[in-house]
């Protein structure tokens, strides 16, 4: 199954998403901040990075920029995971080289999994 790196600073959000993804069979690794996220992305080469835009050291846009500049991660999907208003998140994710976004909070488990599967299938 695909490997997902979740970069999320809020423990409750991270745990909920991790449980859902693991229950669907995905391998999930977790980083609580941007610097750790970059290290883990380089070390593990995940298939998809689920990226919170509000992180405590550098924000998610900055991390997306670093990730996109890494040749070894050029094929990795970067999906923003955010509660930002739709118009703003669209503008930000396109500008920073993300492949899409998923809105927080997770309201329906099945919808969340369908979105993840769809991004991976279309990659």
């Amino acid at each position: 199954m695909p490997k997902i790196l979740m970069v999320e600073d809020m423990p409750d959000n991270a745990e909920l998403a991790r449980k859902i993804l693991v229950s669907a069979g995905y391998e999930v690794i977790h980083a609580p901040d941007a610097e750790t996220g970059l290290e883990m992305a380089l070390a593990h080469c995940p298939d998809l990075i689920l990226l919170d835009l509000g992180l405590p050291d550098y924000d998610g846009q900055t991390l997306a920029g670093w990730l996109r500049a890494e040749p070894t991660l050029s094929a990795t999907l970067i999906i923003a995971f955010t509660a930002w208003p739709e118009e703003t998140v669209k503008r930000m994710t396109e500008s920073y080289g993300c492949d899409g976004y998923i809105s927080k909070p997770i309201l329906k488990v099945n919808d969340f999994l369908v979105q993840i599967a769809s991004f991976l299938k279309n990659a």
Partner: protein
Amino acid sequence: MLKMTSFITAGTDAIQLVPASSFSIEQLTNIYNQTRVDYLVPMPMNAARLAEYVNVYNVDMQHSLVAMQNGEMLGVAMLGVRKERAWVTRLGVIPNTRRAGVGKALMNGLITQADNLGLDFIMLEVIKNNDPAHQLFLKLGFYEVGELLVLRRPPVSLTPNPVVADAQRLDRADALVLVGHDRGTQPWTNQSETLINAQDISGLWLTLADGTRGWLVYQRQKFTLTRFAFKTEKGDPVALAQAFLSHLHYQYPRLDTQLENIQVNDPHLPAFYEMGYIESFRRIEMWRGTPPASLVRNP
């Protein structure tokens, strides 16, 4: 200094206001992050970032406040203090304790703290569409001054060719000499003191073929360019901004750029959009009291 004040609000136990200096930076980071979990723009911080924020923006921890009730931290509000002016920042209340007067108690506490310091001019910014906070500030006597932009420029943007100009690089000392003048009533985050307190400051002085001239001062961090101050001394501000931005991004093509609180009527703005800057969100700037003559003299 306010040692500890109690505010009784209807239907609740007393809310106590405790100086933020009574807590560690880790405790303050934790309470601040808890207040922001459901924010439109969450902006969490780690302890190192909050410590830098306190230093760069002259946050006075002895006059900043934490709201407590029955031993639990409910919210936080910080007070920046500079010559003849104060600044309210990082105000937040934990979501499940809102609508019980905590924010109002914190704000009244900060206004009292500023008054105790002899400061009757207070500045703040509120994120546009944060209506509860905006309404609270209006009720407490703050008035709107203008709208501010938070701008980003991703490093993946096309690197521009530098506009032909006579360009002179400025070291920190020379850059701060320029910033030391004419900052006037800029938002708190962009005032002279901020750049003086910040590390890794440098600048550019440019003269264009048509005689347009001026300068840019900026902070270069490990991964980002930020904290811009700029001025057109003579000529066309858009042409000058095109020139300094093209030189800057040509020099640092891999750095992300984050700019806080650029006034919406800034005449240099069109050049930023041409250079790939995008609007992240807006804030409303608000003041309470009359700005001191020392600020207004150099608008």
